[in-house]
């Protein structure tokens, strides 16, 4: 029982952020689930590790919301893999989420350092 709540909490807290990361990753090209999780981990300097219990639900949700699309491809090792790709809608959503995130983090940074603000000319 404790494990289930952990998963749920994770998804709720980071849901928006996780979506952002996934969409951003896909901007650089179609990718399968494992690749996406590796990419996020690598690009964040090993700080962010997305576990499968959050990743796959997120991917399927994004697909349902039509921000990504998926298809089955055959990999180099002759194995079937499900590959996700960003849609046009997804691109637009990514852009708006990015700007929102940047606004948010700027606002938080300012709130955490009010004196620095005053100090500025």
């Amino acid at each position, binding site marked *: 029982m404790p*494990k289930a709540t952990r998963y*749920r909490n994770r998804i709720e807290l980071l849901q928006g952020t996780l979506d952002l990361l996934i969409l951003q990753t896909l901007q650089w090209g179609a990718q399968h689930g*494992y690749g996406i999780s*590796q990419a996020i981990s690598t690009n964040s300097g090993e700080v962010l590790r997305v*576990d*499968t*219990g959050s990743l796959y*639900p997120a991917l399927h*949700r994004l697909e349902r919301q039509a921000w990504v699309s998926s298809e089955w491809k055959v990999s180099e090792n002759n194995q079937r893999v499900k590959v996700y790709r960003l849609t046009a809608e997804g691109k637009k959503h990514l852009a708006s989420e990015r700007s929102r995130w940047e606004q948010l983090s700027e606002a938080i940074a300012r709130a955490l350092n009010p004196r620095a603000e005053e100090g500025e000319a």
Partner: protein
Amino acid sequence: MRHGGWRRRDEELEEELRGHLRMAVRERVERGETPEEAEAAALREFGNVGLVKEVTREMWGWVWLRQFGQDLRYGLRMMRRGPGFAAVAVLTLALGIGANTAIFSVVNAVLLRPLPYRDPARLVTVLHDGWKPVAPANFLDWREQSSSFESIAAAQLWSLTLTGRERPEQLEVLQTSAEMFRVLGVDAALGRTFVAGEDQPGREHVVVLSHGFWQRRFGGGTDAVGRQVMLDGEPYTVVGVMPPDFQFAPFWATHAEAWVPLNLSRRVSDRRGQSLRVFARLKPGVTLGQAQAEMEKINRQLAEQHPRENEGLTVSVDPLHEKVVGKSRPALLIILGAVGFVLLIACANVANLSMSKSALRRRELAVRIALGAGRWRVVRQLLTESLVLSLAGGAAGLLLASWSNTALASLGPDTLPRVRTASLDASVLLFTLGLSVFVGLLFGLAPALHSTKTDLIESLKSRAQGASRGRRHERVRQLLVVVEVAVSLVLLVGGGLMMRSFLRLTSIDPGFDPRGVTTATVPLSGPRYATDEQRAAFFQRLTTQLGSLPGVKSVSAINHLPLGGDVWTLGFTVEGRPAPPDAERPAAVYRVVRPDYFRTMGGALLQGRDFTERDDATSPGVIVVNEALARRQWPGEEPLGKRITVNGEGSKSREVIGVVKDVKQGEWASEPQPEMYLPHLQAASPRSMTLVVRTSVDSSEIGSALRREVWAIDSDLPVSRVASMEEVVAESVGQQRFNTLLIGLFAGVALILAAVGVYGVMSHAVAQRTHEIGVRLALGARGRDVLGMIIRQGLALTLTGLAVGLAVALALVRVMNSLLYKVSATDPLIYGGVAAALTLSALLACYIPARRATKVDPMVALRHD
């Protein structure tokens, strides 16, 4: 389509996740780990595959439906694995739910179904004292002066003979104002209803038929409109036919099959003849209270204007629905309550059963929760299993109810309006569905919550139950059994009281001997029987003819049959005494009988003699009175030889020549009133008399013989209501029999269910305590001691239940007082008897598990978990 789609998605998801795992392993291997290390590490990192799958699947939506399907399949599988439990549970529930459905169908038909008129909630009756009929002049004044009603109309009952091509038939027809159908708001299905003014002289020979009548006499032919029927020898033109479910009046004249206009032109100023019943429709926006106030005002004004006729009359405006169902409501609600109790006991039994079931599955449930299923998910699944059981029980119950439906509808007494139309219609089906769901939740919720609220570690241990939890479990089951015993006590007390009351009721001496007596009513109408002499001659000839039939011991006739017929009263004066004031004038039930009546009926002539053929118009006036009259008028004196003058006979004085034992008159349960019998040939000859024939042959033969003889004299006469006197008597207690049968049945079912419940709990207790029993036996206890211990435990439970039940019964049973006859609601004999019966059954139920306990092998028990 959805199902196939899901499976495909499931497989794809499986493949996707497997692919992820594969790639993770490969990368690790590339980094230098051994395949085994890589797999283990990758799997650990991946996490709970099943859980990931499930959370992912939730993103697909429609989760609840999928989960419900899963639960359903699982529930059915569980049922198949434990068919014994399922069978018992479904059977118990079927009994409980089925009984409730059956009773509800009656309640629905009698109390709940709206009357077959437009907007029936706006219909009211306007009567004196709430029930007495109204005189025409008053009605016409009310119609003119009142403003609370959209429309108002009056009706009068007309019993007549229908003659024609087929056999003559006795018919009940309602004479109504032309606006009556407007008041009711119902149109004819064929043709039309009355138009305004058709109740005026010259236009009133039209008739509207009921659907049933139209089918019977016209074969349902559409050419019926325009044809003629002969009512009481006069031609009436059919102008319309009503729809099939239409019935009017819904009370008082419930067998009316045709409607003719009411011509009041000759009674416009008649303020005395109270024969009309008034129906009205409230104007929109007018409340019952406002209408009542207005009618009271009008009534007061009329009383001032016409003090002689209207003084002392009150008026009451009542909802029509209330008039129809008001009297039946208490009894039916009590019966509904009783059957609800039965369901309660059934649920308690099934709850007990499912608790022991879920106790066995505790480990399985704990594992599921430990693996990540939410607690609510498991509870939902357990509830689904309960629902499967309860819906199955509901379906079986519905089947039971449909079988008993015909029996119930035909057993229902005539005093229950519309009981014959009780059926399993849409509202009843909905009720059953709702009840099944409710029941499933009721007995499923507690065990479901209880068995998932576990300390996981405890449950996963090898011991099936921790000691403390076992005790808590046991407490709940004991509580359930105590409740069961208590509720069945209440029901059994109710049943016992009803049965005692019914026995008291039917063991009353009716004052005559109904065995071997057949009755039949012959109404005379038409020009051939216009005079007293013609009518008297007919009945004289008929009774003589019948007397000569083989097997007939004696024949007579009376104007109104005791218990089966009307009760008319007439005032009289005792000669030799000063005339008492009007209000205190004595009155007696008025009977006109042919000679030999008392012998035929088996009544007792206590003093004097019966009438003979010689007591006719030429001989001195005579009269026979009953004990009640003699006691009241001549207490302590000799009644024979005293003289009486009966109202309406001018100064004709009659000598009392006989005193008879009191006889039941109208209702079985009421005390006999003073009654006087006049000889047929000395009184105004009634238009209709009921023949009574005492025979030594089977009554079915005598019925056809009766008809033959009547038609031999006049083939246009109907012979109605041929019934044995025993049937008449039985019918008069029909309502009480109905109530008693039902409540008695439920009490019996409750007793059986409660005994089964006790047995179940005691069995479980023995199983629980096997270890302890083994220890006791090993330490030297005898089988007898163990038996005693178990039985004592069972007895303790039963006695607790009895105590609780007693308290509840004493509180509730006074509600039944209206149904009981001369039996006090706290009759100690009944309570004592019921308590003894319950204790005995409980003891019996304990005995089997107790014996099982003594057979325990200590060595096996000590090793028992």
